[in-house]
């Protein structure tokens, strides 16, 4: 007879078989049996966070930088509700997470027991799927299935809720079954005909553009390699969404920079004027499209996505290819080589006018800003950070706000999985715990959280986690004392009524760093910035870097509310001429 294992043991047996090496969690009454078993499974290391939201974001950072699912372990009630923000964040940005939550014993469910909440009810709309395990015999298969659901198709978070009595009960352990399709939900639904149509469209186009997104990153490093091959083979310009940065080298001549609300002038104008748009793994999000009825009016649109429900959701497309980016790109390249081996040569003439136009837009230099010798301009701080770290294969996380957009604009990525930012949900407080997770996955690498002082205070307690595990993360705060993006919108849309967007009682970040037993560094002038950054990079401990920047700098260029791509505000002067009026004011 095979051995009987307790529910708690089965949780770890499953993790072992799923090759989990790190979990992020916080103990509590309803998960104590699982925590009791932790010491018996040496291959699984637990990272103790300071708040369950931190566990969630750390798991996201871990997942995004490693390509493996992030695993979270939390208790019932508040443990589960605290992780909801991170689950929703992962759901919006398609990040694979497996969250194990404790639950009150089955006989107490529904009695409003201590630390009871309807965890599966609360997390139903923010997970791909969730399970309440009421029978010990279902536990192993449920956890294995949870890993499968989280990591296949369009990735996302899942949750398994395990009542405390189930954690004590014993049964036989079941190994994961060999891969089988989920209710017949296979992921590649395209045929050669679609690929041929795509190549036909590509060869006819004189104003093409690739518009790529997080789907390329999610499809694995091979997808980024194939994307580069395709872009070089065609000679087409390429732009990327916030989430797609790194899948194509940021300093390459064919790369037009990020597109969307704070994207470059050349990327947005090229999107507006193109005659062929090839969307690879992006979802026509509202930050990207601007005014939807005037979005790229003259183009044929191709959409490559693994999720059929992304297609024709916001924008109607002419050719839909449902499949994994990697598979679609590889078929496309194969056909391209067979049918149009001299594509680049034959096409150069055709797209030369288009490239001329793009160069003209480029010459506007939309990311330029007015420099200063007295105060540190936030853009300058990011530029210097990039220059001083670009040879180090660094991993960048961010919080949410102006600093995030400046980081996306001025830090150039040339590899996938190096850029972790909360895009869909826009979660302030994401970057610090995410950096913890990234550093756990890559202990030897340089991990920097480009932060704002308001965002970082939302999860600052995770510095304590970083110190406990000797994770030398660098928190690079662009400190302007305002919720900068809120302030910018109030300036543009609410007659400079800066309602509640100024933080009047900020902590002294250097002293705060010392209190956490890590290192605090402050830079006040552009002159000392480089030296201070070098000091930070030479510190092999967690650092909070308080970079005092211009308080009222705005993030440009910008597509104002309710406007299409070709009506961007380029800078402070332009702002006066293009006032946002009428309906635009009520949009977010």
């Amino acid at each position, binding site marked *: 007879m095979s051995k009987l294992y307790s529910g708690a043991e089965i949780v770890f047996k499953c993790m072992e078989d799923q090759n989990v090496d790190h979990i992020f969690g916080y103990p509590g009454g309803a998960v104590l049996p699982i925590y009791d078993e932790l010491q018996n499974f040496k291959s699984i290391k637990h990272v103790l966070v300071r708040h369950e939201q931190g566990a969630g974001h750390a798991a996201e950072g871990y997942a995004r930088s490693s390509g493996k699912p992030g695993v979270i372990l939390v208790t019932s009630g508040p443990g589960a509700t605290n992780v909801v923000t991170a689950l929703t964040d992962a759901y919006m940005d398609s990040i694979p997470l497996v969250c194990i939550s404790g639950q009150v014993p089955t006989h107490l469910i529904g009695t409003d027991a201590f630390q009871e909440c309807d965890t599966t009810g609360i997390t*139903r709309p923010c997970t791909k799927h969730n399970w309440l395990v009421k029978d010990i015999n279902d536990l192993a298969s449920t956890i294995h299935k949870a890993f499968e659901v989280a990591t296949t198709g369009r990735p996302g978070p899942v949750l398994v809720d395990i009542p405390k009595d189930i954690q004590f009960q014993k049964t036989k352990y079941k190994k994961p079954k060999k891969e089988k399709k989920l*209710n*017949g939900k296979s992921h590649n639904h395209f045929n050669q005909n679609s690929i041929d149509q795509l190549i036909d469209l590509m060869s006819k186009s004189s104003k093409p553009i690739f518009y790529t997104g997080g789907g390329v990153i999610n499809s694995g490093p091979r997808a980024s390699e194939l994307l580069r091959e395709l872009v070089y083979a065609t000679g087409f310009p390429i732009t990327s969404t916030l989430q797609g940065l790194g899948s194509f080298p940021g300093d390459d001549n064919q790369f037009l920079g990020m597109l969307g609300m704070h994207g470059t002038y050349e990327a947005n104008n090229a999107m507006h004027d193109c005659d062929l748009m090839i969307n690879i793994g992006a979802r026509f999000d*509202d930050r990207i499209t601007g005014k939807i*009825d005037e979005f790229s009016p003259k183009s044929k649109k191709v959409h490559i996505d693994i999720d059929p*429900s992304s297609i024709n959701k*916001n924008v109607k497309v002419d050719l839909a290819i449902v499949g994994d980016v990697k598979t679609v790109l590889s078929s496309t390249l194969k056909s391209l080589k067979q049918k149009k081996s001299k594509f680049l040569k034959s096409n150069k003439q055709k797209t030369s006018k288009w490239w001329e136009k793009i160069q003209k837009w480029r010459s506007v230099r939309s990311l330029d800003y007015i420099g200063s010798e007295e105060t540190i301009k936030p853009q300058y701080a990011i530029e210097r950070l990039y220059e001083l770290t670009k040879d180090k294969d660094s991993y960048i996380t961010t919080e949410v706000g102006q600093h995030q957009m400046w980081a996306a604009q001025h830090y150039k990525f040339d590899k996938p999985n190096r850029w972790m930012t909360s895009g869909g949900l826009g979660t302030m407080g994401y970057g610090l715990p995410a950096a913890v997770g990234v550093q756990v996955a890559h202990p030897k690498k340089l991990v920097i959280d480009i932060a704002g002082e308001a965002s970082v205070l939302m999860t600052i307690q995770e510095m304590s986690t970083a110190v406990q595990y000797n994770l030398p993360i660098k928190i690079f705060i662009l400190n302007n004392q305002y919720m900068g993006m809120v302030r910018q919108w109030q300036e543009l849309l609410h007659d400079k009524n800066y309602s509640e967007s100024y933080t009047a009682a900020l902590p002294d970040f250097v002293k705060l760093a010392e209190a956490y037993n890590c290192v605090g560094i402050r830079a006040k002038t552009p002159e000392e910035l480089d030296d201070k950054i070098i000091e930070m990079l030479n510190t092999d401990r967690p650092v909070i870097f308080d970079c005092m920047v211009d308080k009222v700098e705005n993030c440009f260029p910008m597509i104002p509310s309710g406007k299409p791509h070709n009506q961007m505000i380029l800078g402070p002067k332009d702002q006066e001429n293009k006032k946002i009026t009428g309906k635009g004011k009520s*949009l977010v």
Partner: protein
Amino acid sequence: MPNSKSAYSFSNKKEKFDTHIIVVWVDNEAGVLARVVGLFSGRGYNIESLAVAQVDEKLKISRITIVTTGTPQVVNQIKLQLRKLVPVHKVADFKREDKAVIFKEMALFKIVGPNNKLEGALKACKKYNPVLLDKTKKSNVIQITALRREIDKMSKDLKKFGLVSVSRTGAVAMTRGADIFK
């Protein structure tokens, strides 16, 4: 409903709303109905009526029939979003005017009044397969099966015969002929 779900832009286009009957085959497990209904409420889709019951005891499959309205784009989204749910096996979509599909709803009417009114009520239901389920000196309970709009009409018409209570199901659907939906 605006054409785009995006709060970043308003749509001025007004598209035509169609009524569709969506049939979903799901694993009959805890919370599955909440998943389906939650998807509708969370994404702002309409539910006009809902009927659900297990149809295969061995495989534990339930059949959910939802009547909804929306633009073609929204109805398409409904189907695609439903197909993403893990316990969903298949999704069928029929237009209400589809002649190849039978739609039926059932209603129970309680009539209270003198004999001539009770008989009048039964007679008025003649076209809709009336079944007299309960009869006393003062009251009748009549069951009819009909289309939604027919039941709507009867609910009004029976008032004059002393209708005091109406109970009705959501629509269920089945294709005509020997074929089944795969």
